[in-house]
């Protein structure tokens, strides 16, 4: 290798399809598995979260009305783009302690997960919707529709596969989301945002923020224009209570899962899609 000085990347946030820095101007340090300095990450605040919710809400109407086929194709495209950027992820996962083998397995599983949910976009409706045989002269059917804007506390210890596994079912079902990336390992998440940005995913559908979780939990739970919140890590009692209590302000759907191993078969399922769906039932009279 030559003595060339490497050009380092500035890791920013991903909001509304662009990569702004935190409005706060603050940062926190990210370290590698040896404890050496890796990068500065944005220390996002309430204002960044609000901006991200605005972007997610603005994107909701368009994304939720895309055809299922189109959503499937776009999820598939994310998988294709990841395949292309494998080296970048191998490097970033390596920095935080993954062996090359482990990193490749994590990337493979992430890509496969995207393909898995790409396939569900035009199928879950048929499995979980229904035509209801009411005892009157009406045609009655129930379909699933996305809940809306979802705030997500992404898995702390699985910065790529965990992240992909929570985002994919949410957007496969037509929702938009604001995600807090793993606090300790935010870099692969921001690189995943770059993948999203080059994959035909409309801006605002997925928004990714970095920062200190204990500072952000309150905002992720209390915002009145967020319809649902997801977390999959085992949280302490106090944080759980805080999330539940603040969520009750606007009857947020609190989806809690306890997943530590993202390779488990239960960690990917159409029921994960259904967790962020509302059932709508339509009646119409039958007659001449």
């Amino acid at each position, binding site marked *: 290798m030559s003595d060339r000085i490497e050009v380092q990347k500035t890791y920013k946030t991903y909001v509304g399809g662009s990569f702004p820095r935190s409005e706060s101007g603050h940062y926190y340090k990210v370290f590698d598995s040896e404890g050496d300095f890796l990068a500065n990450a944005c220390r996002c605040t309430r204002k960044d979260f609000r901006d991200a919710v605005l972007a997610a809400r603005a994107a909701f109407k368009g994304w939720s009305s895309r055809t299922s086929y189109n959503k499937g194709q776009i999820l598939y495209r994310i998988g294709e783009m990841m395949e292309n950027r494998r080296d970048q992820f191998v490097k970033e996962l390596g920095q935080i302690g993954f062996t090359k083998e482990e990193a490749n397995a994590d990337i493979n599983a992430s890509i496969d997960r995207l393909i898995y949910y790409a396939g569900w976009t035009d199928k879950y409706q048929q499995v979980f919707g229904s035509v209801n*045989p*009411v005892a*009157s002269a009406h045609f009655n059917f129930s379909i699933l529709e996305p809940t809306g804007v979802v705030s997500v506390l992404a898995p702390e210890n699985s910065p790529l596969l965990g992240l992909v596994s929570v985002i994919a079912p949410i957007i496969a079902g037509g929702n938009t989301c604001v995600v807090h990336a793993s606090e300790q390992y935010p870099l692969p998440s921001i690189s995943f945002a770059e993948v999203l940005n080059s994959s035909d995913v409309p801006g605002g559908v997925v928004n990714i923020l970095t920062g200190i979780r204990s500072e952000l939990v309150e905002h992720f739970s209390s915002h009145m224009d967020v319809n649902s919140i997801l977390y999959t890590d085992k949280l302490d009692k106090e944080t759980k209570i805080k999330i539940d209590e603040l969520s009750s302000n606007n009857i947020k759907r609190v989806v809690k899962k306890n997943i530590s191993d993202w390779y488990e078969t239960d960690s990917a399922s159409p029921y994960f899609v259904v967790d962020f769906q509302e*059932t709508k039932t*339509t009646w*119409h009279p039958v007659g001449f």
Partner: protein
Amino acid sequence: MSETKTKETTYKPTSPNSKLDFASLWEYSEAPESSANLEIKDKYDLFIGGKFVKPSKDRYFKSINPSSNEEVTQFAEATQKDVDKAVKAARKAFKGEWSDLNPSSRGKYIYRIARMLQERAREFAIAESIDGGKPIRESRDVDIPLAAAYFFYYAGWADKLEYAFPGKKPEALGVCGQIIPWNFPLLMLAWKIAPALACGNTVVLKPAETTSLTAMMFAELVKDAGLPDGVVNIVTGAGQTGAEIVNHKDIDKIAFTGSTNVGKIIQKSLAGTDKKYTLELGGKGALILFEDAPIDQAVEGIINAIYFNQGHVCCAGSRLLVQENIADKVIMKLKDRLETLIVGDPLDKNTDIGAINSKEQFDRVNSYLELGVEEGAEVYQSKCSVPENGYFIRPTLFTNVSQSNRVVQEEIFGPVLTVQSFRTADEAIEKANNTPFGLAGGVWTDKGSKIFKVGSALRSGVVWANTYNKFDPTSPFGGYKESGVGREGGLHGLSAYLNLK
């Protein structure tokens, strides 16, 4: 100055030129349903562990007939000790006999309940109208038959649950705490108890304090049907009794139907626990009426949407959004139709609108009527006579309201309709979705494609197209946004009462 003479036009369904006129062609004779065969006890105890037991503090509260303001009977007030006793009885039944039963036998008990409800239907209907004030025509033709139908539907699920959720193994949750409202007392009981039992759970149910009569009659029915002791427990009382249920440590699931405010309190008090919950909360349903709709049918639909059950319906269509060019005509027809509605004795078979359920609700609706006027709305009430005693409110229209008015944004839960106009479909959708609620909405148009476009844009759990306020046990019901969490009814209603492994 030229003097323009305004011509007063009125309309009738069949002829656009004549006013609806029923009263002068014939007079309605009284047609009261006899309550002679209904035996109401002086007071009712709690139903715990298959027995009627006195409340631990020996306190009883009065239940009032809202159409006469007379006492109907007294119900026991369940306190913490009683709720605990009921939960223990339910837990014991869950650990024992009820879970040991094979699913098809469990189903047969539920079928028995359905059949016995059909057999005792008329008494239940009369009791419902006396205790809650709803017209006998509605309790007889809607509430009670539907309650029986819910039991009949869910009974059949008991031994078929493994077919409902592909790839999953369904398991009962355990003990369910259920709290129901006063607007459809027996029907809401059926919505709660039928799926809970079918899924293999046991229940502790609290009816609303103003309408506990049919729940206690149901307790007698459960006893007569021979259900194992403790499978169904019914405790009466007010909000405090409900709070004891919500906060009880040995309850696995809370199902609540009621106001959004109380729903939020419940969700908050469950914070940090692993209890499952479903909430069916308030609504402010919009009725979108397009110019191409068959107007006379639509007017009938609107009347049914808002004045059914005195407007005490969470999914009531309480906001009419009418396309601008037909607005005057529709408002005139609505006013005409309002004049023909009969407000009065709930037990009279001619009655369209019965009594407001309680003094509390009567005051609440009246305060909204005052508020609407303060906010600058024009108010129109039918000129019908109302009985002197009891709590009655004439069917009411508010016109000249705007989207930000509280009478447009907040749930009134009474016979009060607000009317706004719109020009484009997008404007109608925007207005319809512009409340914190999302329970139900209506679309009236002759154009099929418009129904699907508008129906899918409405952020609400139920869409009634060219109809309104229809219910069926096979049909999932529940809200988006602040109208609640989870669904009741149909296959979708099962998941609220199961662990899916």
